[in-house]
């Protein structure tokens, strides 16, 4: 029965989305991390989704193939009293864009919900198929 593949497909999507959510959480947690003169500040990370074929034609799941680092320069704030300030009195914060991350979070959680719903529907259809011909 080809419907069993739905659990593989949606399951892969759910795990990919939860990994995305994980990365968003890590980015948001480090939004205000400061880099010192000796080490670079936290760099925002992004997941890369790729389609993976699963058996029959048209059945494709999702996989996180890599997690890339954002290389845009971090936020620089003039604050000479900060212990991590450099020689010119600037403090470098991480390059996390909080608004972008919140949007990413909402998108990931919606996609997660969609896939869970797909699995629930597939399950109820399969249960009904199991009871086929038993009605009296």
């Amino acid at each position: 029965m080809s419907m069993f593949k739905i659990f593989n497909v949606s399951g892969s999507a759910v795990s990919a989305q939860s990994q995305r959510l994980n990365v968003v959480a890590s980015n948001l947690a480090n939004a205000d991390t400061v880099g010192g003169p000796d080490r670079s500040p936290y760099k925002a990370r992004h997941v890369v989704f790729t389609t993976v074929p699963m058996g029959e034609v048209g059945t494709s799941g999702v996989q996180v193939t890599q997690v890339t680092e954002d290389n845009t320069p971090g936020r620089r704030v003039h604050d000479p009293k900060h212990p991590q300030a450099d020689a010119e009195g600037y403090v470098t914060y991480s390059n996390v864009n909080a608004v972008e991350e919140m949007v990413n979070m909402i998108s990931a959680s919606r996609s997660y919900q969609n896939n869970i719903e797909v699995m629930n529907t597939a399950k109820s259809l399969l249960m009904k198929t199991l009871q086929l011909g038993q009605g009296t």
Partner: protein
Amino acid sequence: MLNRITDSINFQSEALRLRSERQRLIASNIANADTPGYQAKDFNFSAALKDATGARSAADAGLNLPRLALQTASPGHLALNGQPAGSREQPELGYATASMTNLDNNSVDMDRERANFVDNTVRFEATLRFINGSVKTLNTAITGQ
């Protein structure tokens, strides 16, 4: 005589198989809603059902030859007819065009896919009911009560 009785159930089972395949296809589309470059896929249900039932009547007449298939070692491999080896008659897939232009070349329209998914679910259940009804009718005829 007996095949006349089971003919309608055979037809419904073919419809059920195609419905389940479409369900799987839409699930793939929903799963790949955030994958860059993914093109949504779908097939024409009525044409596929016509094809499938036409192939079945040819099989009943004993006309079709067994298909030779290539060996595959990976789920991405295709057979000679462009479909995985050992698979049954597959509907011809088409690509859905994007209703909005996207920068990441993804043509999945979530609203459309969700609507299709619900529609397909209801029709799947309807087909199940039709089969249940046929079975019930046959049971009544057999038991004679």
